[in-house]
């Protein structure tokens, strides 16, 4: 790794201040993506700003309509939280299957969505649960937040503070994990709301990262059943094709995961 300067702010204002003053600063949350990237010299920030000592980024809270999770809350904390298990069990379940226990002890919600890895799990939950992403300067709807592979709508130095997830009447996430990395080869989050509309978000498969599967959404909003998924289809040209699986394989996997998610709810 290259030379760098370390900062440990205790407030959002100080974190943003350090960022602005750094030549090429980076926020450091759990470090489970940023540090491996720095070790491979794919990133070489001048300054890293540790977010693990800012109490405003911690905490989990809920109302009847939404569950709010601080950006620096770890995957392990989400997985173990009684509040998450009660209000949105599918999200606790999702967090419990990210990577491995050691990664979950450090990795955070904010880091995961800021990174927007095309195979990460949280982006699917954020889209399907119509999340609102709060930053130090504004709020962004999940729909507008994820803009492409490893790309988000975040501006330079903009810090995610917390995320509100809408509470559905039913939700489930099914992921086919890559056997080596545990990242999703295809992960499908299905959420149904009180007015019976359904959102289906897919991660791991899209060549532009996470996306909504409109065809499945229409089918399930119309007929809430596993069978409703049978005639739905995917345009393979929009899917990733790599050493881990072809686009055709992933297209099939997306449907199988959607069916699996549906089976746990019906």
């Amino acid at each position, binding site marked *: 790794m290259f030379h760098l*300067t370390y900062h440990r702010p205790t407030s959002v204002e100080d974190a943003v201040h350090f960022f602005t003053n750094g030549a090429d600063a980076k926020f450091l949350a759990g*470090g*489970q993506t940023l540090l491996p990237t720095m070790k491979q010299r794919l990133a070489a920030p001048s300054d890293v700003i540790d977010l693990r000592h800012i109490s405003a980024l911690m905490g989990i809270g809920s109302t009847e309509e939404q569950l709010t999770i601080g950006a620096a809350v770890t995957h392990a904390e989400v997985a173990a939280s009684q509040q998450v298990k009660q209000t949105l069990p599918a999200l606790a379940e999702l967090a419990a299957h990210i*990577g491995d*226990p*050691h*990664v979950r*002890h450090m990795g955070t919600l904010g880091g995961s969505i800021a990174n927007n890895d095309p195979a990460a799990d949280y982006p699917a939950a954020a889209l399907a649960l119509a999340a609102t992403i709060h930053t130090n300067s504004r709020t962004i709807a999940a729909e507008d937040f994820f803009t492409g592979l490893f790309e988000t709508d975040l501006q330079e130095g903009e810090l995610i503070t917390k995320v509100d997830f809408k509470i559905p009447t039913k939700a489930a996430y099914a992921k086919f994990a890559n056997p080596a990395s545990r990242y999703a080869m295809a992960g499908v989050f299905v959420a149904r709301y009180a007015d019976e509309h359904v959102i289906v978000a897919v991660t791991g498969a899209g060549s532009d990262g996470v996306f909504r599967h409109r065809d499945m959404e229409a089918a399930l909003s119309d007929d809430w059943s596993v069978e409703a998924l049978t005639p739905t289809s995917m345009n393979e040209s929009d899917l990733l094709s790599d050493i881990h699986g072809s686009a055709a394989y992933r297209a099939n996997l997306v449907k199988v995961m959607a069916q699996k998610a549906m089976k746990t709810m019906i």
Partner: protein
Amino acid sequence: MNEISMTVNGETVSHTVEARTLLVTYIRDHLKLTGTHIGCDTSQCGACVINFNGKAVKSCTMLAVQADGAEITTIEGIAAGDQLHPVQAAFKEHHGLQCGFCTPGMIIAAVDMINRYGNTLDEATIRSELEGNICRCTGYQNIVKSIKAAADEMTGSSMSDQSSTSSAS
């Protein structure tokens, strides 16, 4: 350069390190605690797992400065003098290691999972909890057996007849 201070295996240590120094480098090269290993550069193998403020983490994926003020336990810190920790004793008893390279990380991970699951730790859970610890020798069978035996002994819920011979509980 950064002044850092932390508690490692019950002792306070202080050093001046570069911000880019990884925690695992600090533990091995500055503290000379070489039981913590480095088995990869992709954060996947778990040979470097230590206990950080009560939780198992990968010390290759953390900066030493991030651990300033923390409480850390490495493999060197878990035995009580000459008396092996029950997890160490179970690995010995059940042949949970061959070359031993993965073992420090395996044992710290095992202690962590036993802390979290207590007597509900079953074989399937052990296997999924070992996702972040890779062993190139054993085929995992005896690692799983060792962890199960230690968990049974430590939580006093031994229902199998293969209880560990350790007297360190």
